[in-house]
């Protein structure tokens, strides 16, 4: 493979990996607040992409408005879902709540199919089809949007946890829920906030990646799994690890496709698992050691 082809796979990998990173971060936020692995995480991504499609392509809203609306609506959906399906099971074992999220993913996927149909919807890039040429590789401008907005979202989440009292209260809940209650923090409200935040950034991932990959009702499973792999690779519960893990999955699966003999390229989706197995084998606690308490 030529250097420019390698660079091409790398750029694509970082871009797709950015979306995985946001999904992984979404997993981490809910896991830290509740101990739940949310199997409906991928559905939040898909809803973000599909809503963005409707607002931007069907209703022709300005891009920024469409993006914000998609993110906010998905965050609200997550709040409702948490209130109706997760909170009533608060006193039940964490496993039952995890299983509930599998049910939720089926319902959300079914609803998306009813509303948007089975077709994949294409979404225009944010600022035209232009590409930059870098070292013989084409860098679509949309890739820059994906990377830039991902970086912004990660920084914003980090600042939220480090600088705001609400962010610190959310960490306190994850560290010691009982002590958090004793200083006057409402744990249910913090759980709700983490669902909103988690779903919001996942929706953002779905919206920014939609022009690169299409938006379709059934993409959630694969996106969810890749994001989950990223979160595990980074050390489950570690926000920064999740982001790095997500990017790593994106990069390695694209390089893997590029380096694999022709005929094996269809195995792209299997690469994520291969990477996951490798990491779990070499470093079971994840790349960054487990620090359940940190937001990012």
């Amino acid at each position: 493979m030529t250097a420019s082809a390698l660079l091409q796979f790398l750029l694509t990998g970082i871009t797709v990996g950015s979306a995985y990173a946001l999904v992984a971060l979404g997993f981490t936020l809910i896991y830290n607040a509740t101990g739940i692995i949310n199997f409906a995480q991928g559905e939040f991504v898909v809803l973000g992409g599909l809503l963005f499609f409707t607002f931007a392509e069907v209703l022709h809203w300005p891009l920024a408005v469409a993006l914000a609306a998609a993110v906010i609506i998905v965050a609200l959906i997550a709040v409702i879902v948490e209130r109706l399906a997760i909170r009533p099971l608060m006193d039940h074992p964490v496993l039952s709540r995890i299983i509930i999220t599998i049910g939720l993913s089926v319902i959300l996927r079914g609803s998306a199919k009813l509303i948007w149909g089975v077709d994949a919807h294409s979404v225009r890039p944010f600022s035209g089809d232009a590409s930059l040429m870098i070292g013989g590789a084409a860098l679509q401008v949309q890739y820059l949007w994906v990377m830039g907005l991902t970086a912004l979202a990660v920084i914003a989440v980090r600042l939220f946890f480090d600088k705001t009292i609400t962010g610190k209260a959310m960490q306190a809940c994850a560290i010691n829920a009982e002590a958090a209650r004793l200083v006057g923090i409402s744990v249910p409200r913090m759980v709700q906030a983490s669902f909103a935040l988690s779903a919001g950034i996942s929706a953002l991932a779905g919206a920014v990646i939609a022009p690169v990959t299409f938006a379709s009702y059934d993409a959630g499973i694969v996106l969810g799994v890749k994001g989950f792999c990223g979160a595990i690779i980074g050390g489950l519960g570690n926000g920064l690890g999740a982001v790095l893990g997500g990017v790593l999955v994106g990069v390695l699966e694209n390089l893997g496709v590029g380096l694999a003999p022709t005929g094996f390229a269809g195995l792209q989706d299997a690469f994520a698992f291969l990477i996951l197995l490798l990491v779990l084998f070499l470093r079971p606690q994840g790349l960054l050691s487990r620090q359940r308490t940190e937001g990012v």
Partner: protein
Amino acid sequence: MSLLLTLSGVNTFYDRLHVLKGASLHVNEGEIVALLGANGAGKTTTLRTVCGLLRPASGQVSFAGQSIVGRSPEALVRLGITQVPEGRQIFGPLSVQDNLLLGAYGRGRRAQRTEVPGDLARVFELFPVLAERRHERGGSLSGGQQQMLAMGRALMARPRLLLLDEPCLGLAPLVARQIMETIVALRAQGTTILLVEQNARAALRIADRGYVMETGKVVLEGTSEELVRNKDVRRAYLGKDYDEV
């Protein structure tokens, strides 16, 4: 003196395990009241029932004249009851200062800006070592310093009633004495205190009154002098060497 806290005939269960069996006690505004008893007597359970972490199956708990049964701990913190829990329970990964700021979490946005900075300064004055180490992780402090942090965090809520669960457990004698002195100073500033202690001697030295619990019931009550003189208390909780003091 006015009544601040009253428990009457309180029964509390852990699932089916009946732990508090009709416990009754009261605390007057401005008092230090000691709650004594052997391991497993139900002292911690009593405090957890008062602060809302446990809900009594029956009986009355009232604070400043109103029933508080069924209120959440969050709500009770706003009402003026704060607990320094057994084992300190500080937020280890967060900084000392963040631990303290979170103590004031329930006090609303206005107070965060107007009153909290001053309260933080007062806690630092009370425990200078916390000021020195304000940017370090709470978990990196020594046991005594963590106890100070837990108390400072509780004070940031401006409690009317402070519940202290074995604040001196595992501390060196000198540090334990310092904690006890702080409790006396807090009372002098107007905070009412319910103090759970295994070390009856130290507790009765600073308390106005005390209760002795056994298997979920209050079996003895009196002023500190009465309890110190009481034969059963001396035998069970003060040890023989007390006679020689």
